[in-house]
């Protein structure tokens, strides 16, 4: 028997719609804020590069801690236990890296007018082919991520009991319209609303829910013993511990290689803004860790076996755990607030990701290969249209194809994007690696990572390596990256001797500081 869909929750829906409408209005006003010439790519696609510390904090927070993160992380803790908590060390490790390395990227981008990471690679290594590989990796890794943001919206709409696909189309139209009109400025404004709602929700949740469930001791007592901690190593198998550490480290290395993260970074007004944000952004990690624990609380609340949520779990699996927990624990009006936080939360990263893909397409494919002498305002126009196409593609993906495709592709995307690390991050410090070698290393990493993921049947991303009789479970992105770096270094030794053709470095040493 098909479980009955939820009846429409009128109060929650009203609050949700009101907050959503308020955020939308704000998004449209943003085009007037610190008005720039929005036909220019750097104005539309990077907000004119003048966001200060506070706006950057909201923007990056809204951009990196996505709606899907807020749904999927607790879902993993709910379904798989301790291993799902890897998101916490992951976001701890991101910030020392952001602090130490990425101000260099900001500086060189500012000095040379770069808008994307592929722009930098193009300038640094003088190889159009390598830049194209970086740009394509970015676009392909980001597209399914956008689709998953819309899945986040779908989950809360189902939680509210709103039937049909029309609401998703409306959300899409809103997103498309304000992104087209305001570019990154619109996202920055809406990020402020979204983040405030998230903090309110998290603070209320962490106080109210444990009280209702009888305290944390009781909550953790409901977790099956085997899932409370990572499975310990045996004689010749490192168990979940190596998987956990490599997942955290690999994800941390990948995060700021994603185009939407680069876009957020480059929109800041100085390298100091980035450094200051590395110190203050961990506030979001606190929120994320509480949200991860919501997965444990959902277990304790026993929402999975409640008939009221059967339809939601059937449609969305563990991703329905947190919406079900909110519905169970909060009064209707606050459910509206919490769901609005997730729903509006989806729009911010979806918009920034679309803008980032548009920047990549415009700069590194359109201008590079299709229309080398296009004018700056034409560049801006192409980017706006591309962003619309990208968003529409993501929406159709969600509506037409099974959800599992988007989830699988996003998993692969994480493995692919980290393969741009040698060209981008190592490239910030040295160009001793040869562009052809980097290209071969990139291909090796993508090939090996994809192969491991296929062996796993796309279920999880921890692939057991067998080394000297020892089984070492390792995040596929991480082991593929090690292969990539090794191949890049070895092949560089050969190419630097064999290839006589000079590759010109367009950047100067002083551009980096």
């Amino acid at each position, binding site marked *: 028997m098909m479980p009955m869909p939820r009846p429409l929750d009128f109060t929650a829906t009203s609050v949700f719609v009101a907050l959503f409408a308020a955020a939308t209005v704000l998004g449209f006003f943003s085009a007037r804020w610190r008005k720039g010439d929005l036909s220019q790519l750097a104005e539309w696609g990077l907000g004119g590069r003048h966001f200060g510390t506070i706006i950057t904090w909201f923007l990056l927070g809204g951009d990196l801690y996505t709606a899907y993160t807020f749904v999927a992380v607790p879902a993993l803790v709910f379904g798989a236990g*301790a291993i799902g*908590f890897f998101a*916490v*060390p992951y*976001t*701890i*490790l991101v*910030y*020392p890296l952001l*602090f*130490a390395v990425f101000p260099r990227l900001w500086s060189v981008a500012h000095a040379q007018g770069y808008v994307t990471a592929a722009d930098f690679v193009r300038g640094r290594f003088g190889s159009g082919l390598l830049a194209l590989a970086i740009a394509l990796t970015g676009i392909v890794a980001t597209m399914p991520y956008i689709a998953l943001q819309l899945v986040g919206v779908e989950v809360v709409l189902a939680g509210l009991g709103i039937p049909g696909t029309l609401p998703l189309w409306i959300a899409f139209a809103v997103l498309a319209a304000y992104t087209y009109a305001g570019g990154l400025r619109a996202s920055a404004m809406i990020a402020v609303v979204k983040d405030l709602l998230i903090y309110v929700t998290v603070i209320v949740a962490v106080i109210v829910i444990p009280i209702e469930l009888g*305290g*944390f*001791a*009781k*909550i*953790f007592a409901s977790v099956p013993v085997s899932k*409370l*901690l*990572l499975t*310990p*190593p045996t004689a010749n198998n490192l168990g979940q*511990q*190596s998987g*956990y*550490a490599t997942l*955290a*480290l690999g994800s941390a290395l990948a995060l700021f290689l994603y185009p939407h993260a680069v876009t957020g970074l480059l929109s800041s007004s100085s390298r*100091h803004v980035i*450094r*200051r944000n*590395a*110190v*203050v952004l*961990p506030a979001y*990690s*606190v929120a994320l*860790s509480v949200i991860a*624990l919501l997965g444990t609380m959902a277990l304790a609340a026993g929402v999975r076996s409640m008939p009221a949520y059967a339809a939601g779990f059937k449609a969305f699996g563990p991703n329905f755990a947190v919406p079900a927990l909110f519905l169970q624990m909060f009064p209707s009006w606050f459910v509206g607030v919490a769901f609005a936080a997730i729903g509006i939360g989806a729009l911010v990263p979806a918009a920034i990701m679309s803008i980032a893909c548009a920047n990549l397409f415009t700069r590194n494919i359109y201008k590079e290969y299709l229309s080398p002498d296009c004018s700056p305002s034409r560049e801006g126009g192409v980017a706006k249209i591309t962003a619309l196409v990208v968003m529409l593609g993501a929406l159709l993906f969600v509506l037409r194809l099974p959800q599992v495709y988007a989830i699988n592709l996003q998993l692969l995307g994480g493995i692919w994007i980290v393969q741009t690390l040698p060209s981008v991050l190592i490239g910030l410090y040295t160009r001793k690696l040869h562009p052809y070698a980097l290209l071969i290393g990139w291909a090796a990493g993508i090939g090996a990572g994809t192969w491991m993921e296929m062996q796993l049947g796309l279920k999880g991303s921890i692939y057991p390596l067998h080394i000297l009789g020892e089984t070492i479970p390792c995040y596929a992105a991480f082991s593929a990256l090690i292969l990539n770096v090794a191949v890049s270094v070895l092949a560089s030794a050969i190419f630097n001797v064999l290839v006589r053709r000079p590759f010109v470095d367009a950047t100067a*040493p*002083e551009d980096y*500081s």
Partner: protein
Amino acid sequence: MSDTNVRRRRFRLVHLLLIVPYVAVLWAPFFNRSEPAIAGIPFFYWYQMLWIALGALLLLPVYLTEERDTKSE
């Protein structure tokens, strides 16, 4: 040569602080246990949550040192 030297960010001992969180939260055998629990939260969970704050605090001296360097240049 001297010009690039001036602009190059000096390495200082304080930069080693940036590595500390990596050791603290990647060495899973150290924190993969449930005792001691605080307020019913097992060690595994509160230890890592604590490191969110510690990680940010460790960045602070590095930030202040670099800001001072930038000003004195």
